[in-house]
């Protein structure tokens, strides 16, 4: 098996692991407005925690590039949101504003996987001996990302299978981007801080634009504040150790 194919295969394993993030919702039944709000708070915290790590990595490679990428990420969300608002949307059982928000969450998490995939490929370029530890680490690290997607989708009425499916889908760019990044490490390395910034900017902006305002509508501010802060630092901790 060629090295490039092996990187792709490892990447596929990490994408499949994202689907495990839907597991905590196996027993979740119909969602009250308050549980939707609290699920949004958890998703917000997890996405902020993931962005934190991307920004730390991005700025260590180039501050200006990371922030330029983040600005592009914000523009991407603004444009996509306006474009999506023009069509009558459906996503599984979801319709209207719920479908639009769910699609945006899946989109930003997918965009974030693109840059993670590049990061993985570039990291693998550093040496084969690290391949399996890195794969395992990313697979485990993807589970809370699946959790963020599932929290946002399940609370709006999506099925468990849809949550797992969209979680895996959101991570598919990882193997797809890891392969060319590994093969052409010198070409991809300079783009990496822009990509990391883009993903972080899109995620933070999505949280500020959609998830937090929706959370405040149906839950008390203190509950939202505590859940976001705790899940954000739990995500940072998970990414440092897993």
């Amino acid at each position, binding site marked *: 098996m060629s090295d490039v194919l092996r990187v792709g295969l490892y990447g596929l394993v990490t994408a499949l692991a994202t689907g495990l993030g839907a597991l905590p919702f196996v027993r979740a039944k119909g969602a009250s407005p308050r549980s939707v709000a609290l699920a949004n708070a958890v998703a917000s915290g997890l996405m902020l925690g993931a962005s934190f790590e991307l920004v730390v990595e991005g700025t260590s490679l180039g501050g200006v590039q990371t922030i330029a990428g983040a600005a592009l990420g914000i523009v991407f969300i603004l444009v996509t949101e306006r474009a999506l608002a023009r069509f009558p949307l459906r996503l599984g059982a979801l319709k209207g504003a719920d479908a639009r928000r769910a699609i945006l969450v899946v989109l930003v998490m997918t965009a974030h996987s693109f840059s993670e995939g590049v990061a993985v490929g570039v990291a693998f370029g550093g040496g084969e001996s690290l391949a399996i530890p890195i794969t395992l680490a990313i697979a485990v690290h993807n589970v809370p990302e699946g959790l963020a997607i599932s929290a946002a989708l399940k609370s709006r009425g999506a099925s468990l299978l849809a949550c797992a499916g969209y979680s895996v889908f959101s991570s598919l760019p990882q193997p797809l981007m890891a392969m060319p990044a590994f093969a052409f490490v010198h070409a991809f390395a300079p783009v990496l801080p822009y990509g990391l910034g883009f993903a972080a900017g899109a995620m*933070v902006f999505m949280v500020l634009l959609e998830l937090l305002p929706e959370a405040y509508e149906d839950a*008390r501010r203190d509950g939202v504040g505590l859940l976001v802060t705790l899940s954000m630092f739990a995500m*940072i901790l998970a990414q440092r150790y897993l």
Partner: protein
Amino acid sequence: MSLTETVLLYSTLAAATSALGAVPAALVPRLPRAVLGWANAIAAGLMLGAAHVLAVEGVARSPVLGALGAALGAGFVWTAHAVSGHPAGDVPTSREGSLVRASLHSAAEGVAIGAALLVSAPLGLFVAAAIAAHNVPEAMALTESLRKSGVRWRESSMLAVLANASQVVLSIATVLLAARSELSLAVALGVVAGAHVYLVLVDLLPESYEQAGHETIAVVTSVALGGIVLIEATLRAAGR
């Protein structure tokens, strides 16, 4: 200049900038709601930026102690809100309520200046400058809310500066207590990052969304946050 003198100077200067927040109130009879929303969103972005910078330092020293500190920080502010009678972070309508809330914010900011200064002198200066910048829009919102409860602008601007006195006290206490080891510093950095994130989520953002709409607030907050991250990354690169 000793570390204690430096922190005293930085935190006093940062607290004094609050007086500038009263200037708009002196010029116009009433500030539009959207302007207050912008002010709150700028303050939120700058505070999140400071939290980001401090969390980076905290988790770099010890991820577990940094994250534990963040949980403690959020829990501390939640308790303080509950004790002061505003558990859900509701906007206080009384003069005393507004002042208690403002003092709590500046207490957390005092810990931030102290902890940042313990990391390095440039970081201390940077965080103090970020907090000084954020004190202006914050004091602007506080002055306006005091004015609504019948306080004249001169008195309300003085109260806005006084509410920041806790900043000076807490910054010195942090320098004295957290200087003992890298681990206690990791906890202090985590505490202040968690407290800042929680305060932004409970006080500043919900209020600003009501004042100026989601999209505007998301853009203004992101720009302020990105600005802080960019300046810090540039300073860090220059220091290497």
